[in-house]
């Protein structure tokens, strides 16, 4: 496939054309309406929007739908992709496995960009005084670090869900493969818009973008920020729709809901949230965007606007959003522990339903982000109760995990290390929750580094560690090769130890008075040493991530060939030849047992078999 025919290249070309066209059309419209020809912000926003539409058109992801709209038929996509090598992933594909990898690679890439931003501002923060960043630049870097990482997490969740769910339920693809591709590609213009803010004045209102600050600052970057998040949100919604339909309708015969792999449960719960809540961040950002461009003073206090309204709308999504971030990762933990402990998942039904419980309760807690906001004082109390209630289903997961490994026969390959690390870090994050949940203590720690420590720990424990574990675990399935166990363990210890140091010290400095989102801190706080240590720890984490990525890249090309089902898993995706390609299952299989009946002799999960241990090479048997 010629380079210039690849979807990404054509899409970008079309995007440039579309942007210019949008600019020209808007200028003409403005002149027609008697306004001045040029006002940078509305003109560029319109250009960006049209550019995004043209991008999608240029990639070719809309082609089949356009044909249907014209009454034409489209052939079924061929089983094997015609494009070889890495180029396959730069082109539109309807195969959920290709899309999953596209999601995953994009996610890792922008995560490293956001991580780079962090290393930059952590260098600035290592000492008091402003060394090399301007305050504006600093504020923009932390805001982008936040929103780009959030995008990376959503993409990573998309990667795991899209790649694994059809394989796990015995389907040959998702319910809506074209929608699946659309949901991936729309992230690209969204991410480009976010990154464009750097050269458009930056965004210094934090990733939360509260007005009036985000409405007043005459920085075009803000509008790009709002628009970019909007597009990424669309991806979430469509992806969730696709996943729910697939899970509800396309499970293999015999796979009742309580016979699904537990990861599928967590994706179901996640998708229910993403499908229904994402609209609220789109709405809240759209309102500020309209305030900026059209002068609609929703949040302008001088015109009777209410700044608290924004916060309620925003957090109504953004709290459930964090459960979108962590539920799949918690599902990965539940999925992997039985395999590496050779024991059933303890209390499978309770664990499955706990994901649903977290999803539901998560809708009722949003105002705990607003305890100091000036909302009605008495209303803060019920939110304390609901927020603390989330600890119950979460606790069920923790106890179930411990009970799963208790009495088992544990082995400690890299995926298992990351899973165990995830549990302890998510525990740390979760336990730093109650001081935030009770209003009185939250008054002290809100907007400090205690909060920063809390959410980084929950994100690393609930998303990043499980995501890396999943990549290592399913690596042989995706590539037919094994990763380097040595580099895997090295990356694990670097990230784990660096991150523990970082989190604990962050929480301490927050309690001592270190606010968040500040380019410089007062020496009178007495946290100079802590800040230096946090910066060093951050670099250690960054190094660990680098080792992980190097491991991936090297192993894709030069990794040792993997044996089939190296983990001796009962799950169906391991019972077919690796690497998995084309239509997943040549013949449909039936489910005839429970997924995690390790230890129950001769119990089969599916008609594909796989309960007997397969012979392992010598290197794998010696732990």
């Amino acid at each position: 496939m010629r380079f210039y025919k690849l979807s990404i290249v054509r899409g970008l070309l079309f995007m440039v054309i579309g942007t210019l066209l949008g600019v020209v059309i808007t200028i003409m419209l403005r002149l027609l309406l008697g306004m001045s020809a040029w006002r940078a912000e509305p003109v560029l926003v319109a250009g960006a929007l049209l550019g995004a539409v043209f991008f999608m058109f240029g990639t070719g992801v809309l082609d089949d739908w356009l044909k249907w709209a014209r009454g034409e038929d489209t052939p079924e996509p061929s089983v094997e992709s015609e494009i070889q090598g890495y180029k396959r992933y730069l082109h539109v594909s309807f195969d959920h496995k290709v899309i999953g990898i596209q999601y995953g690679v994009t996610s890792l890439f922008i995560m490293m960009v956001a991580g780079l931003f962090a290393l930059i501002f952590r260098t600035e923060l290592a000492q008091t005084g402003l060394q090399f960043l301007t305050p504006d630049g600093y504020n923009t870097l932390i805001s982008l670090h936040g929103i780009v990482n959030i995008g990376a997490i959503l993409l990573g969740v998309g990667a795991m869900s899209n790649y694994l769910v059809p394989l796990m339920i015995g389907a040959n693809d998702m319910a809506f493969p074209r929608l699946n591709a659309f949901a991936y590609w729309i992230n690209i213009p969204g991410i480009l818009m976010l990154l464009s803010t750097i050269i458009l004045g930056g965004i210094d209102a934090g990733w939360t973008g509260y007005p009036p600050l985000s409405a007043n600052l005459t920085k075009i970057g803000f509008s790009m920020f709002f628009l970019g998040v909007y597009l990424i949100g669309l991806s979430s919604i469509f992806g969730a729709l696709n996943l729910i339909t697939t899970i509800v309708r396309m499970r293999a015969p015999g796979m009742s809901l309580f016979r699904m792999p537990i990861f599928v449960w967590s994706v179901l719960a996640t998708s229910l949230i993403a499908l229904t809540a994402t609209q609220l961040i789109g709405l809240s950002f759209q309102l500020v965007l309209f305030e900026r461009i059209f002068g609609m003073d929703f949040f302008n206090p001088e015109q009777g606007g209410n700044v608290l309204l924004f916060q309620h709308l925003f957090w109504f999504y953004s709290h459930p959003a964090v459960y979108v971030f962590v539920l799949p990762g918690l599902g990965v933990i539940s999925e992997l522990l039985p395999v590496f402990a050779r024991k059933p998942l303890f209390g499978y039904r309770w664990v499955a339903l706990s994901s649903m419980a977290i999803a539901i309760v998560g809708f009722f807690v949003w105002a705990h982000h607003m305890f100091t906001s000036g909302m009605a004082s008495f209303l803060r109390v019920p939110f304390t109760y609901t927020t603390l209630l989330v600890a119950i289903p979460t606790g069920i997961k923790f106890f179930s995990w411990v009970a799963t490994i208790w009495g088992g026969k544990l082995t400690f390959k890299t995926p298992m290390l990351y899973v165990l690390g995830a549990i302890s870090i998510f525990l740390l994050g979760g336990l730093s929750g109650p001081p935030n949940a009770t209003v009185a203590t939250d008054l002290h720690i809100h907007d400090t580094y205690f909060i920063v420590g809390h959410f980084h720990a929950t994100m690393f424990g609930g998303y990043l560690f499980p995501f890396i574990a999943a990549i290592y675990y399913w690596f042989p399935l995706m590539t037919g090769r094994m990763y380097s166990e040595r580099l895997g363990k090295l990356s694990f210890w670097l990230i784990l130890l660096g991150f523990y140091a970082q989190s604990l010290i962050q929480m301490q400095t927050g309690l001592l008075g270190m606010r968040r989102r500040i380019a410089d801190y007062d020496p009178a706080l007495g946290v100079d040493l802590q800040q230096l240590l946090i910066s060093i720890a951050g670099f250690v984490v960054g190094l660990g991530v680098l080792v992980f990525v190097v491991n991936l890249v090297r192993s894709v090309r030069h990794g040792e060939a993997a044996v089939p089902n190296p983990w001796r898993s009962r799950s169906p995706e391991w019972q077919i030849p690796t690497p998995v390609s084309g239509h997943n299952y040549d013949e449909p299989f039936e489910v005839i047992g429970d997924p995690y009946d390790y230890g129950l002799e001769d119990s089969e999960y599916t008609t594909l078999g796989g309960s007997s241990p397969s012979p392992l090479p010598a290197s794998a048997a010696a732990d």
Partner: protein
Amino acid sequence: MTSKKQPGPLRILIASSHPLFAQGLNSLLQRRTEMETVVVGMVSTIKEAVEALHELHPDLVIVDYDDDKVNREEFLARFVEGEGRLRVVLLSLKEGGDEAIVYDRRSMAASQIEDWLDDWSEFNEKASPNREYPVQMDEEQEQPQRRNTMRHIIVAGLLVIILTVVTILLLTNIRLLPEAASLQAIPIDDLFRLDFIAIAVLFSLIVGLMVYSIVVFRRRKNDMSDGPHVEGNIRLEVVWTLIPLGFVLFLAYYGSAALGETQAADPKPLRVDVVGSQWSWRFEYPDYGIISTELILPVDKQALLSLSSTDVIHSFWVPEFRVKQDALPGDGFERELRVTPDLIGNYKVRCAELCGRLHYDMLAAVNVVSQDDFDAWVVSQTEPLSDDPVERGEMFAQQFGCIACHSLDGTQLVGPTWKGVFGSQEQLDDGTSVLVDRDYLFKSIREPGLQIVAGYQDLMPANIAEGMTDEQIEDVIAFIESLR
């Protein structure tokens, strides 16, 4: 799975992996039955049973109820889903002599099937309550297992206790909170201490058990077999749901009570209006007519702070006081915060909500002094204003936050320096040039953003001078003029 009503002998399928059961039953059927039967197959695993159902179309299936290897629930689930006119007999040799359950697929309505499956599961639970534990062994073999488990629990429990103690010692011996300097801090710090203990206990519990498992429950070399088949334990699930629920409800209640305590209202507090502007604080004492850039408070007296902002959202926080409250812009959006300082000292208030470029530096002094010192300060502040407009202007320039962005010594800050600016010719950002005289300055203060000096951004808050009278602005201009 379809089967027609076949004429001829009754076709029987026997499902059991125990040879004695299958062979024995087979012989019995051959010798003692009155109607014609033929055993069409004997299967010993569920897989074989499913295949046999498909291929052989038996009329009757006899399932060995005691056989662990034939997964009964699975088989019966299939049985229900199938379309064949089939009867299943569950036969047990253990549970009493005549315990045989017959289920007749030919005569059950669809709704009955659901109930039947439930009944069957219940029956199964009652009949073999030990299903959750490893395969039932006779008494002698069971005892060592139980002792082993107890040993694990005791050692792991000890580890958890040690970890808890160590963690609590650690948490209580490192500096975690700034000194408490307000009455409101008391219930808050109590709550923190409770939280720290709970965190130490729960962290040690989970991590302790995990570490124990990692060390003790490892796979032995060359042991490729699986671990014990433990699926769950309902009692344990209920316990570890209800106990945390109780604790969480207690914590929520205790925490809310603490909030109530921090909001206890003094009937005659000291009123202070706190105004945040990008990027400075102003404190006004309406009872005394004082405007100050420092917050001076008498010790042991509740101050009722009324917070507001002239532009974006700010937040008032003195770490030693613990309590925090956002300052919102807009009429009618004043928010109250009650603080009763109880420790004389010099503290700082630092803006705690990102408010733009100089958010990190939006600080002000907060001095808690004795009542006598406070009274003396009030007197000194309410002395009649200086006669000299320049002196007054300097005072107002500080109080209303001008100095945050305009330097007096030539340094370039957020806004143009005031040194030497009066009477000079300045180039504006639209290319025109203007004389910096009284008119220009007055307009620039009342309506910032109309005529911006080239090289600077439109950052001056629109209503920064909302609280200033014209005379006060004239004084400030006089002060600017004096800075040649």
